[in-house]
Structure formats: C-alpha cells, structure tokens
C-alpha cells in the first residue's frame, strides 16, 4: 500500500518545489551545478569535461581572456622528485616570484608557495634562528646560506591524512593536490604540515588580469576562491606537459633540479646516487620527495 503523506514524500515534494521555483525564478543553474559538484576524484570523464568547459566559459566572462583548463592525469611510470643545491642557492628569491606568476597566486593578500630562509653557516640548518625577511643590497651575504622551503611532496603526507572531507590527496605521480571546490577551509592540513607549505585564502584572491597565466590545470593554478587552502603542485600544469616547474626554469644559479624518480637516467636519480642528500625534518618520517644536496 502506498503511503501518500509520509515524511519522505513530503521532503521529496518540497525539495522538488523549491528547485523548480528557483529554476523558474531565473537563478543561474550553473551555480547550482557547481554547488552540487562531486569530489574531483569521483567524477567521470564526461562530468569532468563538462565542468571544465563551464569553467573556461566562466573565466572568459569574468576576465575577458581565453583560458585553457586541463585535467590531464598523471603520466604512467612517473614519480616526480625535486632536488635543491644548497651550495649554490644565493637567496635571490627569483623563484618565489616566478612561482607567483606561473601559479596565479594572490598578490594581496599575499601568498607565496616558496619561502627562502636565510640561515647562519655557523648554526647549520636551524629553523629557529632563520629568517625570511632578509633584505640586503646584494646576496649572498657573507656567513649565511639559504634554504628555500616549499611543499616537500611527502610520500606520507599527513596533510592528506587529516583532511576530514578528502579534498586533498596524492596523485599517482606523487603530487599532492587540492580540489578547491571540495575544500571546506577547516585548515587542518595547515596544522598538520610541518613545512608551512599550505596557504589559506583569507580574502578573495587578487591577481591582475593582465598577469593571469591562461594555461591552467584543474588541480593546479586555476583561480582559487576565498576560504580554500592551496599549495605548490610542482607546477602540475607544466610538469604533466613535460616541462620543468617555473622555479626550476628561473633559477639563475641552476640550483633547482627536477625529474622522474623512476627513470634511472634522470638527473634527479644521478643526484640521489652521487651527491650528499638530505631531507628536512627527517625524524618525522613523512618521507619528502624534495631533497636538498651539496653540489660541491
């Protein structure tokens, strides 16, 4: 027997009525779609394509430019690794601003994925006595060395473990990414990251339109919203196209090295096998894929 006036049927009817009322009132259905959008990982190819198409249209409307948003998956047989030569870095911060430009980072409020720490040679690697605020006429300064810190792309990323909604995860090529649409902005991941590599959009991100990088990746440098967390993705939009990250390309001393850890002929593997290598905060056992080495 059918129950005509059950609670379930009431909710069904009322929600249907609300939705149709909203639809009839001319409200933008795309906003609804975006609101009801599933986690990126659970989307089908078709759904992804339509979401990306809508995004491109939306960005064009908003910024008046053509954008290309990619959802290119990981290339099979790759595991990205990074190495930074501490004996070469001069602390010029070129990488910081190349990253800002490439990844469409908010200028004000300011977000930097890379923080270059100046440390005393006498003290060695010592975060407590380091500073990111150094500003002399010329670098390097005598008696100091420089340690740029960004996302260390851990093999055991605790930022991922603590996320209550699974809005962040490690891709098969080792890059830890964030689904900005799924992030609820609880900032647990920021508390869990011992490298300060995650950044929160406290305000509406602000990027000059003429400086927007139009080559985008859905999990990378597409415009973020207020209230979501973002992080370095090894320039996922470049790396998955075979290119070096922006920080590698800009480094004037060639201290930054990037490659595939699974390729025995890659420069990154040569460094791991032939140079003295260290990772930051090794005792935590997060197992970063970002190595520091001494090239001399």
């Amino acid at each position: 027997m059918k129950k005509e006036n059950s609670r379930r049927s009431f909710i069904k009817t009322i929600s249907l009525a609300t939705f149709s009322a909203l639809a009839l009132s001319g409200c933008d259905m795309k906003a609804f779609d975006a609101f009801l959008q599933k986690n990126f990982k659970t989307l089908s190819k078709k759904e992804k394509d339509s979401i990306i198409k809508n995004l491109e249209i939306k960005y064009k409307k908003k910024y008046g430019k053509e954008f290309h948003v990619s959802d290119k998956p990981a290339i099979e047989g790759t595991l990205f690794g990074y190495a930074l030569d501490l004996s070469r870095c001069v602390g010029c911060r070129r990488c910081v601003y190349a990253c800002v430009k490439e990844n469409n980072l908010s200028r004000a409020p300011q977000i930097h994925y890379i923080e270059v720490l100046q440390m005393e040679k006498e003290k060695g690697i010592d975060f407590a006595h380091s500073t990111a605020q150094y500003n002399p006429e010329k670098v390097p300064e005598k008696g100091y060395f420089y340690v740029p810190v960004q996302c260390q792309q851990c093999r055991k990323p605790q930022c991922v473990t603590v996320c209550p909604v699974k809005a962040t995860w490690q891709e098969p090529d080792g890059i830890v990414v964030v689904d900005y649409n799924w992030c609820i902005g609880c900032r647990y991941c920021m508390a869990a990251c011992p490298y300060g590599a995650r950044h929160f959009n406290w305000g509406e991100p602000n990027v000059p339109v003429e400086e927007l990088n139009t080559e985008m990746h859905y999990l990378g440098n597409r415009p973020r919203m207020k209230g979501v967390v973002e992080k370095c993705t090894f320039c996922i939009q470049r790396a998955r196209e075979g290119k070096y990250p922006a920080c590698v390309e800009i480094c004037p001393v060639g201290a930054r090295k990037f490659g595939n850890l699974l390729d025995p002929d890659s420069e990154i593997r040569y460094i791991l096998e032939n140079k003295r290598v260290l990772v930051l905060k090794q005792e935590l056992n997060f197992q970063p894929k970002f190595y520091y080495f001494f090239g001399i």
Partner: protein
Amino acid sequence: MKDKIYRKIKIPGILMALYIVLYFGCNNIESDNKEIYKVPDEKEGNKKIEKAIEYAVEAPPFSDGIFPCTDCHANIKPNPERRKLVEWHDDISAMFNHDSENRWCLDCHDLNNRDSLKLASGKLLDFKESYKLCGQCHGEKLRDWKVGVHGKRTGEWNGKKEYLLCVHCHNPHSPKFEELTPEPPPVRQEDIK
C-alpha cells in the same frame, strides 16, 4: 712421462692464460673509457645515450661587434710575449681574475687563429665548445654539467633540454659568480590585511 709434459706446458700455459686475461681485461677498460669520454655531439645514433645527453647549447655570449676576432687581428702581427694589454682589451686586463698569477690570454686563445680557442694540448677549439676548455681544469664541474647537475637546464624534464655554456654564467676572465640583487621579502604575517 706425463708429469714431464705437464711441466713443459705449465709455464707457457700460465703465461698464455695471463696474457689472455690481461688482453681482454685491458681492452674492456679501454672501451669503457671510450664510452665515458665520448664527445656528446658525436653520439647521434646511439639511442640509449642520445636520450641522456643532448647538448643544445645557446650561442656563446660575445660582446657586441667583437666577433670574429680576425676582423681586427688579421692586420696585427701576433706577439706571443706575455704582457699587460694597454691599448686594446685593457678592460679585460683590468678585470682579469682567473689564476692571473699564472695565466694570460694565450693560454686559452690561439696565437695564430684568433677565432678559435686552444686546449692545453694545442688543439684548436670552437667557441661553441668552450666547456671542454674549462673542463681541462674543472673536470668535476664538467662531469656534473654533462649530467645536468651543475648549471641550469631548461626545457623538458623528460625530453629536449637546453644547456647554457659555462661562460653564460661565469665570465671566463673573472669567473666568480656575480652577486645579485634580491627580490623583495615577503609581507610579514602581521602586516597582511
């Protein structure tokens, strides 16, 4: 009887074996060396190494209008005597800081062919291959440069890469890396509004 025959062939036998071992052993080492020291440009066709070593190097960074050197030097009588240059190239003389106690122009530039560099062996070298000249002394740097660890690489992490010559970053006459002006420091957390 048997013992005698054995004794007779024992010594030459051992010698023979030794010779064989040495012959093949040394030959192996030699061919290994060839692999290592092969000039990368000549490696076309060798697919395995082709992928690892490809030297697409930018053109050497000459000052405007200075090359070819023979434009001026064709009419100048070469003078092999070590001296301080005063009339021409005095700027280089003034800045020269590359083991200046022991070296001067003609240790790297050729006396008779000014458009070429010269290795210590006397072999002439194009300016495009100047890394070989640097590698004579800085062998370990050349080794790291070849595998992409020393110096900057741009292009593709898994494909075509572009190299810079040593002289793109280090002035060959004063090779210490020049100091840079840093970009502005980040806004302090407490100043973010």
